[in-house]
């Protein structure tokens, strides 16, 4: 996931090569990826070990299990609608709730010194607890099912958003806030046109971290207890020694991570277009 072309460190604004250089870089990356997959394919085929399957076999298994459905269902199979969609739904709703709550709380804490004094130690305690450790607590409170899983995801992923929103809102440039004051911007406009955009770079960094974490929390919460979902399929694979299914789930999680990250990067680029622009100072 970290080698994703759209978000890899080599394409950050400072080190971006010329257009021609970029094409070569992209080709080189694809080449490395292709070589790795080819090596994996050749190695596993040669070894013939039943626990390590060749990637082509995994990919075709994934295709037939989840993406071989009728066009009317967007090519999703019954297995996909029964497991993939519920997992994604829980993950995205948990992430969305955590995002809204985290930004709202974070901006409030970041801009109100009194609230910061009261809440900050609580925030540091909350983020210090490893989120998976709380899954048993949610299991206890909600029993097995969607509410438990969503709650675990929310609680697991809210911390990066919260901490980054606090930081971003607190450190909005004093020039921006003083200008807002000088022009008597009403509080609502000050929030939506100055504080939130000013804190947006940090907020986006938090959201991106928590999106990756949401995938982790989705799987962990489903491992802990679920009646459907990708994690549940993984549990099935484990109990029935279905090695092929296990590899397919791993592959699917990898693809999901890449796709989600890429979609987020596209959205972030749009929202933060002003930030990547060169600062003309004279």
């Amino acid at each position, binding site marked *: 996931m970290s080698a994703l072309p759209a978000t890899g460190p080599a394409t950050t604004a400072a080190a971006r090569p010329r257009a021609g250089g970029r094409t070569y870089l992209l080709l080189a990356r694809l080449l490395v990826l292709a070589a790795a997959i080819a090596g994996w394919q050749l190695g596993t085929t040669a070894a013939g070990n039943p626990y390590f399957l060749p990637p082509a076999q995994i990919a075709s298994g994934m295709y037939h299990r989840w993406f071989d459905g009728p066009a009317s269902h967007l090519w999703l199979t019954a297995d996909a609608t029964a497991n993939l969609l519920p997992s994604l739904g829980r993950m995205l709703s948990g992430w969305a709730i955590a995002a809204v709550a985290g930004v709202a709380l974070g901006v409030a804490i970041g801009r109100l010194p009194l609230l910061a004094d009261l809440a900050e130690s609580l925030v540091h305690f909350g983020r210090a607890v490893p989120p998976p450790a709380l899954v048993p607590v949610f299991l206890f409170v909600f029993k097995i099912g969607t509410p438990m899983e969503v709650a675990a995801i929310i609680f697991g992923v809210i911390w990066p958003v919260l901490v980054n929103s606090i930081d971003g809102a607190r450190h909005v440039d004093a020039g*921006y806030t003083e200008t807002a004051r000088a*022009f008597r911007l009403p509080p609502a406009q000050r929030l939506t046109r100055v504080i939130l955009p000013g804190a947006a770079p940090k907020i986006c960094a938090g959201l991106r971290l928590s999106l990756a974490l949401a995938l982790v929390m989705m799987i962990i919460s489903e491992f802990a207890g679920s009646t459907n979902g990708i994690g549940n399929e993984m549990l099935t694979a484990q109990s029935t020694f279905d090695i092929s299914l296990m590899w397919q789930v791993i592959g699917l999680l990898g693809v999901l991570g890449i796709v989600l990250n890429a979609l987020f990067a596209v959205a972030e680029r749009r929202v933060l277009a002003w930030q990547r622009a060169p600062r*003309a100072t*004279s």
Partner: protein
Amino acid sequence: MLEVTSLTRAFGNHLAIADISMQVAEGELVTIVGPSGCGKSTLLRCVAGLLPPTSGQVVLNGVPVTRVPDRLAVVFQDYSRSLYPWLSVAANVALPLLAATRRGSDRGSRRGRAVRDPAVRDRAASQRAVSQRAVSQRAVSQRAVSQRAARRAVALAALESVGLGGFADRYPWQLSGGMQQRVAIARALACEPVLLLMDEPFGAVDAQTREDLEDLLLRVQAERHITTLLVTHDIDESVYAGDRVIVLTRGPGRVRAEVAVDLPAPRDQITTKERREFARLRAEVSRLVRGTPAPASAPPEISPPEIFQQAP
């Protein structure tokens, strides 16, 4: 119209400005000049109501300033931190109108005053009619749309007046520094201020651009007669732009002297600065800023007959 009485501001034990008193008349352009660290910006922030004074007071049109007064506009030195990079040029200029229209929405008279363009005024009048007639959700959203259009029209007119008519939909960071400061001036003009405060507004641009911006300010000032307080460390600028120059001492800033500038209008970067009178005023202000005494031969005060005397 602006009266500053014994204004003092301390930061902890450090006294930034001490016992500053001054008066600015309606439509006057007063420049404040002083060595760096003399508390010029502190003075301006106190006058703007952005910073509460430690003692003394600021009175604007008979009302003591305790918070940022209505119809005040500020142009800051650092345009890159006062224009919002996430808003287009037009949206930046329209931003203070948001405050004006919000407050004006329940008091019709204010909105009318904030709009000069007749077409915009008609639209504002029709908005008011709509707001009186209906309270349905639809009417409210229609009003919001037409208010936005009205704000944009005012912003475009303000941009036109600073020579940036074609740049409304650009972003500040796509413009040069001088153009960005023009945007900041347009934003200040858009809210039709009664008092315009400028904090070293041309300090961050190159010399040529600086002259252009000074002339822009003088032109706008001649057209609209906005009472203006301009803080600068540039002695030439203080004399060239000001009707009156107030010289502050090194920190803590106190008023060392006031120098009336009787250079004729319209002023011109070349011919005005060619005048003997300009050179004399510049020298006088320079000495006051540095605190060096005038040589015995130099005239200590402005002598009126010399004022209209052209340089050879």
